[in-house]
């Protein structure tokens, strides 16, 4: 493509696509440094207690074994802010699967065999891993995850609920979920004299460098963190995980480059999970459908060593106008692995529950669920009172309804069938906050007429290289093919992580700024460029992190059609359709991919995914991709993502909102609501697997619990 200002929005192909499909792209374990060896963690075999002895002799006698690190001999590190990184520092065992030793050997196979030969003795204590809504140790934390207040309240929600003519009082249950990216958490660490070079699978190398410099007391300029290509993260690589700390320790201890590629079976315990959430929602409305009270209370678990409270009640502070509201989170510290970030933390489970309850309210009112949502649109953000920078939820709902054929829907539950199949359709809304952070970037014009932008962005499979080149080409007013982007290396200008749907906005803002500055320089100069070109720098500190007077969120609407087999209880999605209002869409191809990826993950959350906490042992039963059921191709039907052209001048120079998570939010609720429409039965515990659905189909039909 040529011309100026045309690079944004075009469906440019991923620049590393060919490299990836031909195997040329290097991931963190694929840097065969001379003398490189491999390490394998030994997971704790008890859920609570402490290590009293680690017998390593047998392991060290095995062929290829080089070293066994334990809490007795591992390098000491400065206490990390994130307690899950304080590995091999004390004999304490906070949960089953916690690394209690690390074996280093020549090959991965030798490391695995030696790890199996390490014998660990424990002083075992009784553990408790069962989350219940009335757990005696439930407490109200000061903050939920991401700094949100644990509790917000206005009006008199209890009084308003008690006196309302139409009420819904329902509980929902979302099980533990795991991110399970294709590439497991992996790091290769190499000490080059007093320099540390790390290849790691992370969503943000700048943060990895900051943590390593702190833990190992190194000056920043002696640490380089490379994350060239990352095989997915979904939040689980948003912050450094134990693999990188273990790899650096082992490299220091052995004097050799060391790769730690966490085995798939270790991931559920070591790299985080979405904590289970128990939701209670009380919605009250007048007979016309206007909300008079909204209460969303969440109980979740966290681990003994880390408070991470899934902020699932937070979206209820954004979504609907109501004169009375209470949203609160309670947590129980259990002897479980530490929960952590997973795609759309808070919004994903929270909007499942809220949007399911809204569907129940629509049923109780005898009202169309699209109309109910439109009716309760707030003029300002309910919790903060701020005006929205842009909010086009109504447009998404109406456009989605039009495309989906919603007007042909018979609202009666259990009204459509095909032989043994019950068919139904459902709708749910989506919201995700606009997040953005300060970033640096550099733009360089070269004498040959090409340009290079450099920023330590990370491509976790989303197309970051491509979209940043588009942002640069647009700001420079040059054809896209003349711009190259360099990312994935902490020696580049520092930048925040690919997470919270903030990457493109954060990096793009600084790239845009550097390119604008560079264009100015080029415009005011004459004659050829010097051999090294000319360079402009940008830093959006103070800009990107400035408080906004606006409430900034993306919105969307999901529609789903399901078939429920009354013979087996199997639920299969027939079609999904999402419409999103997420500011300016910067790359139509990669954006679509992100939207439908998020929707597919929502399909998994609704129907197939879930981890089982084994109360006897304190670990998750599903430890591989055969048993943790992410949707297979056969589960993913006709799936469409659309967006509306949304202009918002209060975001960033590109006018974009994040798109990595909004596709996921609400999609599970749309499917659950469709299952209710199909069956007349309201299922309130995910995932909707045949065991639950078949049992539900045997129960008498209900159409909500409206009061």
């Amino acid at each position, binding site marked *: 493509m040529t011309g100026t200002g045309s690079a944004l929005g075009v469906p440019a192909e991923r620049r590393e696509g060919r490299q990836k499909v031909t195997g040329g792209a290097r991931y963190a374990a694929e840097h065969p440094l001379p003398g490189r060896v491999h390490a394998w963690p030994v997971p704790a075999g008890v859920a609570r207690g402490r290590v009293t002895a680690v017998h390593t002799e047998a392991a060290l006698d095995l062929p290829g074994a080089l070293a066994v690190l334990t809490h007795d001999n591992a390098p000491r590190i400065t206490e990390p802010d994130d307690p899950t990184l304080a590995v091999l520092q004390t004999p304490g065992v906070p949960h089953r699967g916690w690394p209690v030793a690390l074996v280093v050997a020549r090959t991965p196979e030798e490391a695995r065999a030696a790890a199996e030969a390490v014998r660990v003795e424990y002083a075992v204590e009784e553990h408790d891993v069962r989350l219940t809504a009335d757990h005696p140790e439930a407490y109200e934390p000061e903050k939920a995850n991401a700094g949100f207040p644990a509790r917000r309240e206005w009006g008199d929600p209890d009084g308003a609920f008690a006196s309302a003519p139409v009420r819904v009082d329902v509980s929902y249950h979302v099980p533990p979920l795991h991110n399970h990216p294709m590439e497991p958490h992996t790091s290769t660490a190499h000490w080059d004299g007093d320099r540390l070079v790390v290849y790691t699978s992370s969503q943000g190398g700048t943060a990895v460098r900051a943590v390593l410099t702190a833990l190992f007391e190194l000056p920043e300029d002696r640490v380089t963190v490379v994350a060239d290509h990352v095989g997915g993260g979904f939040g689980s690589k948003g912050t450094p995980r134990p693999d990188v700390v273990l790899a650096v320790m082992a490299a220091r201890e052995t004097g050799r480059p060391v790769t730690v590629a966490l085995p798939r079976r270790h991931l559920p315990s070591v790299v985080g999970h979405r904590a289970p959430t128990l939701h209670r929602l009380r919605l009250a409305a007048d007979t016309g459908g206007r909300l008079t009270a909204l209460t969303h209370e969440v109980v979740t678990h966290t681990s003994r060593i880390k408070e991470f409270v899934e902020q699932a009640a937070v979206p209820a502070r954004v979504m609907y106008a109501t004169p009375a509201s209470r949203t609160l989170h309670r947590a129980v510290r259990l002897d479980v692995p530490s929960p952590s970030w997973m795609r759309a933390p808070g919004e994903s489970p929270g909007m499942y529950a809220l949007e399911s309850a809204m569907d129940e309210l629509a049923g109780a009112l005898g009202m169309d669920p699209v109309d109910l949502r439109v009716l309760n649109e707030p003029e300002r953000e309910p919790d903060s009172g701020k005006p929205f920078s842009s909010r086009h939820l109504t447009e998404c709902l109406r456009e989605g309804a039009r495309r989906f054929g919603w007007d042909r829907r018979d609202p009666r539950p259990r009204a459509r069938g095909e032989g043994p199949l019950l068919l139904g359709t459902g709708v749910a809304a989506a919201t995700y906050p606009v997040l953005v952070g300060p970033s640096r970037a550099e733009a360089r014009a070269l004498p040959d007429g090409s340009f290079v932008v450099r920023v330590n962005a990370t491509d976790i499979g989303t197309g970051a290289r491509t979209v940043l080149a588009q942002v640069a080409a647009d700001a420079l007013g040059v054809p896209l093919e003349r711009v190259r982007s360099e990312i994935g290396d902490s020696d580049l200008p520092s930048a925040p992580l690919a997470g919270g749907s903030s990457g493109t906005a954060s990096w793009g803002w600084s790239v845009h700024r550097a390119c604008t500055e560079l264009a100015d320089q080029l415009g005011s100069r004459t004659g050829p460029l010097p051999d090294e070109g000319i360079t402009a720098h940008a830093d959006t500190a103070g800009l990107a992190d400035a408080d906004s007077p606006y409430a900034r969120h993306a919105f969307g609407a999901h529609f789903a059609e399901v078939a429920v087999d009354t013979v087996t209880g199997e639920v299969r999605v027939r079609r999904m359709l999402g419409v999103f209002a997420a500011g300016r869409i910067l790359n139509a191809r990669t954006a679509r991919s992100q939207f439908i990826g998020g929707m597919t993950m929502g399909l998994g959350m609704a129907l197939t995914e879930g981890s089982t906490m084994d109360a006897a*042992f304190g670990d998750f039963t599903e430890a591989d991709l055969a048993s943790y059921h992410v949707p297979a191709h056969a589960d993913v039907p006709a799936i469409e993502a659309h967006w509306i052209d949304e202009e918002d001048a209060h975001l960033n120079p590109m006018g974009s909102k994040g798109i990595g998570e909004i596709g996921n939010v609400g999609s599970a609720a749309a499917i659950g609501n469709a299952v209710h429409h199909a069956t007349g039965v309201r299922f309130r515990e995910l995932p909707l697997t045949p*065991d639950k659905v078949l049992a539900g189909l045997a129960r008498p039909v209900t159409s909500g619990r409206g009061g």
Partner: protein
Amino acid sequence: MKPFGYLRAGTVREAAEALAEHPGARCLGGGTNLVDLMKLGVERPGLLVDVSRLPLDTVEELPDGSVRVGATVRNSDLAAHPLVRDRYPVLSQALLAGASGQLRNAATTGGNLLQRTRCPHFQDLSKPCNKRTPGTGCAAREGTHRDHAVLGHSEQCVATHPSDMAVALAALDARVELDDGRTTRDLPADRFHRLPGDHPERDTEIRPGELVTGVVLPAATASLPSAYRKARDRASYAFALASVAAVLRTSEDGTVVHVGLAFGALAHKPWRAERAEAALRGGPATEDAFARAVERELEAARPLRDNGYKVPLARNLAVDVLTRLATARNRTGTTEEDS
């Protein structure tokens, strides 16, 4: 890693001798389950006998009209074979319901029969498991067992056999051929796998030194109406929550002439529903009769805390499949073998 020997067998006899000489040796076919288990440390064979190149890779019709399937025929090839698709649709459907396309391309007929349970505790060395290490206990009975057995389990073991293919073989009255290098014998497919009893470490009736050389699909069940149906958590690449294989022949007046019925994922072996078959034989091929017979079969079920759903699920599957087979016959008036 534990070193192991590797022998590429050229003849059945060579393979059988190697198995006899090396207790604990394992046959390597497609490796789709065995190699995983070796990585996990669940299987630690001293010797792998690679049988994948033995001349057992054909599907052939025998003079008596039966069909012999070699042990190394790949699952994908078997499912697609015209003889199987035409005469034994239940087998083709069962194979295609199993695993994923990639796995089916590698997995063999013999290996499918000899695959181990996917009980999560069996696969986890840090957990007790009587099947993996006799005498250590069973972590599933009181632990996670939504996917486990409701029929024929023991105090020792509540695991299920994961094969789809084997369920179809049981319903078809297939026979499994075994060879120890000197003599051959065969077993009915529904007697090849065992119930756990006090020896859950033994999955099958195979004797030390024997290998599976093939499966014979009998002429008697060729071209009878048959079907397989499987319920599962996701549409592909998931083990059955319950499955059913059915073969049904009815007469002109709607009487059951022949019925073969087997359940998958309910027990330590494909569960041949002999009581239901006996109840149906000679009786009317109606939905009511199917329901009564299947319920009678499932009276023996002893569900665990979290897998009671399997009983109504299996019932529904069996009644659905049998009714469809009966209805299909009525609709077409005659079945192929009648015409």
